[in-house]
């Protein structure tokens, strides 16, 4: 009897520690709390149709957060993903201009372009030893400016219907009825792939490189190539996110703006340490969901959407301060 009581007490303490530790459990608890509050305010949110609509909306950020996770856990930043998403959507719209036949060739080109951006980010950071903060900030501006130059300021053209299927449709394809969005499936595949990758030697070395690059190098791993691959993954996933976002809402001049900070906020919210070496990819995913849920909640509370950047800033600071607290104790 006493033994059970003691065990349950210690389990309770364990849980409390887990929930307050600032790691993946904290963000999961936050996600649950936010979702519960949304449902209390607006019960229709709990309906499967609404939940699937939420999943469809959140999927691109999940994909971006996973990409950002690889880079952050290896000790770097990727600020260029928002601009890259915007550039990819604008390039796709202009090149295909609604022509179905061009969908696949343009997708191939986007992939090549995405990987090229990732390669440049990675090599400039690792071989030229430019801090990734500067490299990717530069890349963000280069992409933003180059796209404006190329399009004369504002996007033109249109995305083909088949391009938009992944981001917009689901099965069964009956509007207004329950459907599983393809975007959700894409996000699940990406997360599954990332979890497997992090269990492979590549993933473990990547975390080690973020924790202590010198020690990792002495252990025989090639740190520059590890980090370059992280940038390649980030740019690749930004391209996937571009397909989802372009599919979701089509092409507008503002597409992609601010997504890099959304992704970084999501990762940090998931308890992944800035500077690398700590945190799980699942937590980054939950962080992305929690951030989207939080914005949905603000919308339900009729807060102006202009409050978003302020909240993001506060979240980044509080989350990092919270994580720092854990590290010291």
């Amino acid at each position, binding site marked *: 009897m006493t033994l059970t009581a003691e065990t349950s007490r210690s389990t309770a303490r364990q849980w409390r520690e887990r929930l307050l530790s600032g790691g993946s459990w904290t963000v999961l608890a936050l996600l649950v709390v936010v979702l519960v509050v949304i449902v209390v305010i607006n019960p*229709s949110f709990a309906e499967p149709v609404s939940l699937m609509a939420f999943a469809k909306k959140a999927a691109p950020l999940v994909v971006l957060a996973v990409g950002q996770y690889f880079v952050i856990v290896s000790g770097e930043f990727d600020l260029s993903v928002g601009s890259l998403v915007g550039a990819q959507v604008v390039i796709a719209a202009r090149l295909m201009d609604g022509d179905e036949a061009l969908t696949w060739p343009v997708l191939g080109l986007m992939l090549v372009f995405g990987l090229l951006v990732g390669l440049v980010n990675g090599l400039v950071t690792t071989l030229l030893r430019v801090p990734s903060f500067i490299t990717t900030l530069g890349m963000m501006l280069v992409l933003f400016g180059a796209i404006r130059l190329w399009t004369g300021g504002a996007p033109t053209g249109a995305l083909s219907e088949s391009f938009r299927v992944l981001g917009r449709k689901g099965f069964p394809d009956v509007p207004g009825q329950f459907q599983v969005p393809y975007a959700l499936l894409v996000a699940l595949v990406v997360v599954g792939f990332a979890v497997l990758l992090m269990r492979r030697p590549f993933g473990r070395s990547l975390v080690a490189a973020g924790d202590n690059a010198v020690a990792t190098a002495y252990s025989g791993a090639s740190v520059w190539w590890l980090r370059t691959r992280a940038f390649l993954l980030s740019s690749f996933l930004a391209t996937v996110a571009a397909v989802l976002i372009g599919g979701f*809402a089509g092409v507008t001049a503002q597409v992609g703006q601010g997504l890099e900070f959304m992704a970084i906020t999501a990762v940090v919210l998931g308890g992944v340490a800035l500077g690398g070496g700590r945190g799980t990819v699942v937590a980054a995913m939950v962080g992305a969901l929690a951030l989207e849920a939080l914005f949905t909640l603000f919308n339900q509370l009729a807060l102006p959407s202009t409050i978003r950047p302020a909240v993001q800033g506060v979240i980044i600071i*509080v989350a990092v301060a919270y994580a720092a607290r854990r590290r010291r104790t």
Partner: protein
Amino acid sequence: MRPIRALLAGTAAAGLLLLTACTTDAPTEQPPAAEKSAAEEEPAESGAESEWFVQEDYDRELAQRDVEPEGPADQPWLQAIEPEYVDTADFAGEGGTSEGGDKTLCFSNASVSNPWRVTGWITMQQQVEVLQEEGVIGEFRVSDAADDDNKQISDIQAFVEAGDCDAIVISPSTTATLTPAVEAACESGTPVIVFDRGVNTDCMVTFIHPIGGYAYGAVGAEFLVDNLDPGATVLALRILPGVDVLEHRWAAADKVFSESDIDVVGVEFTGGDGAKIKDLVTQYLQRGEIDGIWMDAGDGAVAAVEAFEDAGQPYPVFVGEDEMSFLRKWDETGMTAIGNVYSNFQWRTPILAAQMIWAGEEVPSEWVLPQEPVVQEDLADFLEANADMPSLHYAKFGGEDLPGYPEAWTDR
């Protein structure tokens, strides 16, 4: 202790952000609203009760919609509503480096950062080419400020200091900040032409603009009131707060809605981002039916329509713009809609005004261009006329008779 520190950091950050949020530039010349009473010491931030709403301007703009404009009916960019002409004989044949033909025209552009400005900018360049071939304009010198007030101020200064501009055309990026720069340009003696957004001075020879934001906002709101039953729900989608042209649109719409039985269920800022628009509309549809959508600019209108499609809901009564993607969607879906117009053809007028000023012909001191929405009856005509145009083109661009038509606009 430590959680407290974390909290403090958060609070400090929030405070900082609030502070910076207050430093945005707001036009200073905002006459107090006519019906402001003592009870309303703190006016709403936007809408008909706000400092943005000026009853006089609202009444004037609404009346101007019914005034028959002077000038050729097939060239709306040369029409003017209730013009008061000014003499420009002083500028004829003098000023600058060149006499007679081959004048140097200088243009300080706020930006080409949205499809509306890109469309207008193409039209303007085509008009300049015509005058260059006629030998009226020798050099067309352009600087683009990329939405940066400081850059535009130095752009204008550079034109003034160069001293060889025979006329300076300015499309200001913001009202209050650009006023001194425009005044300085006026003082140089070169004829100054301002178009699109205004400045707080009347020193320029002519200020060219369509009727304005109040008329734009009211047209859409009246359309919704006329086409919806009393008690119907309307969602208003706005781009961003604090920009006078956009605030006027919403203030007028808010005024019209407040005098009707329409239930405005939400007013949301979208940044013109399609993904955000679609997400917001989807969330509103989860909570209840939406009968009408009012937008302060057409960017991303199609995303809002798609949200209804994807939610399996009937189409709303829709207030969009004359952007081709929206007009095409309107035609495909057969919904009840109106395409609001902020006359894109106004980009031609400043060039022609410069030609008139150099010739010593009189021009209206405030050149108010007509601003007529696209309605169901005209829709087919506009779709046919612009069949080859890209989706982010504006139907009332007014360049059909220029030599570069249509390639200049289709291959952008």
